[in-house]
């Protein structure tokens, strides 16, 4: 499972259980439901803004993908609740994941 390798390249792929097809989050080699191995589902996911606030000129949002996977992401433009967004930038900086949505 190479979630972080893909993330380092700016690609956000969510792990999926090979057996039960559940999307697994946080990223893991094993399904938290049936314990089988996962692999990355290589598709572009759309997310929905659940909540947001702002620090200085940048918005930070809770974004939900696939009904259950939630991350905190940066957004430059004013977000709206329930707005559909996509990951525009992502990666790993000093050990921390970062995500930006548009």
């Amino acid at each position, binding site marked *: 499972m190479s979630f972080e390798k893909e993330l380092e390249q700016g690609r956000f792929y969510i792990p999926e259980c090979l057996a039960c097809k559940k999307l697994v*989050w*946080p990223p893991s080699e094993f399904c938290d439901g049936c314990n089988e191995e996962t692999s990355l589902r290589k598709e572009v996911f759309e997310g929905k803004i*659940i*909540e*947001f*606030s*702002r*620090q200085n000129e940048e918005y*930070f949002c*809770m974004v939900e993908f696939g009904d259950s996977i*939630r*991350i*905190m*992401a*940066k957004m430059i433009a004013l977000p709206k609740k329930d707005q559909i967004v996509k990951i525009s930038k992502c990666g790993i*900086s000093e*050990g*921390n*994941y*970062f*995500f930006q949505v548009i």
Partner: protein
Amino acid sequence: MSKVGIAAYGKIPFTKDDHKIESTLHKSANDLFQKNPEIDKKEIDAVLISTNNNSKYLSPILSEMSGIQPKIAHSIESLCNSGTNSIVSAFSYISSGLADMVLVSGAERYDSPGQILEWDNSRGEFKHPIFWASIFSKSYKEKYNISDEELAIVSVKNHKQASKNPNALSKKTYTVEDVMNSKKLTDDLKLLDCSRPCTGSASILLASEEIMKKYTDSPIWITGIGQKTTSAGFTKNTSLSSMESTKIAGQSALNMSNHNISEIDVAEVHDAFSVCEPMILESLGFTDPGNGMDMIKNLHQTNNFKINPRGGLIGCGHPLGATGISQTIEIIEQLQNNAESRQTDNPKTGLIHNMSAAATSSTVLVLEK
């Protein structure tokens, strides 16, 4: 299950001072033994340390510094509710018969590594607690039509109550205007809405019923315990305007003690940020959802110290590993009518609520005379 009580406690002022964790731990344990010279240290079977500090072997170190040779000695870490989790472990050792008397000491430095949960990468670059607190605040305010000025009353009330607590970090009182004009951290959070990391420690001695009879004429018993972990990651919270782990832990503790929430006379709750206090009061069942601020406003206007008489985390400061123990000591003092100018009206039953990492886990204790 055999009864477990609290035989003694020790506490020190919370500060911004730069002291070694070992020295900080020792101070509150030493305060306990100085105030209770009758305690026979040979009877202490276990020494449990509550901290997020990275220093090693702290329980044997405190044991040696205090002249104790316990059978059981180890540390317990669970971020901000390490303190009450340590008390639960001590309770379990005693009620199982593995120990008769357990010293629980919690300590933290102002620069604790427990302030950030590095593992939680779902938070992206927003790992500092001010970000989850901002999301909670925004969500809660919108859902229940609460203003920033109303939320600021939590900080005003708890600083007022902390000003009566000689061990609190904050000695100042503030107005709603002061809170509103304090540094803006995000659109939904001001500096005075936040508890502050600090250096501090607190210690308590738990004992079996038999031992309690030897050491105290005014025993305080732990009659209810509830714990719940829903996740580790903030983004797994299903609600952003209530606390699921608190609901479950609170109900478990009340069930165990055979009480309902209306019978709780005094409570210490984990107001890490202003918005947490109404959310906790609602999740514990003190009020209906959305009415937490009405209760807080009424308590503040009537100068009633029922909730967070110690001054809460906002007023007292938040030395993570010591907080749950310090909260517990406040309830002991309240039940023993020893809380001086913070004393509430002859309480008989008290509650402690202590949580971690955006309420992904909660621990609730019920104490009685």
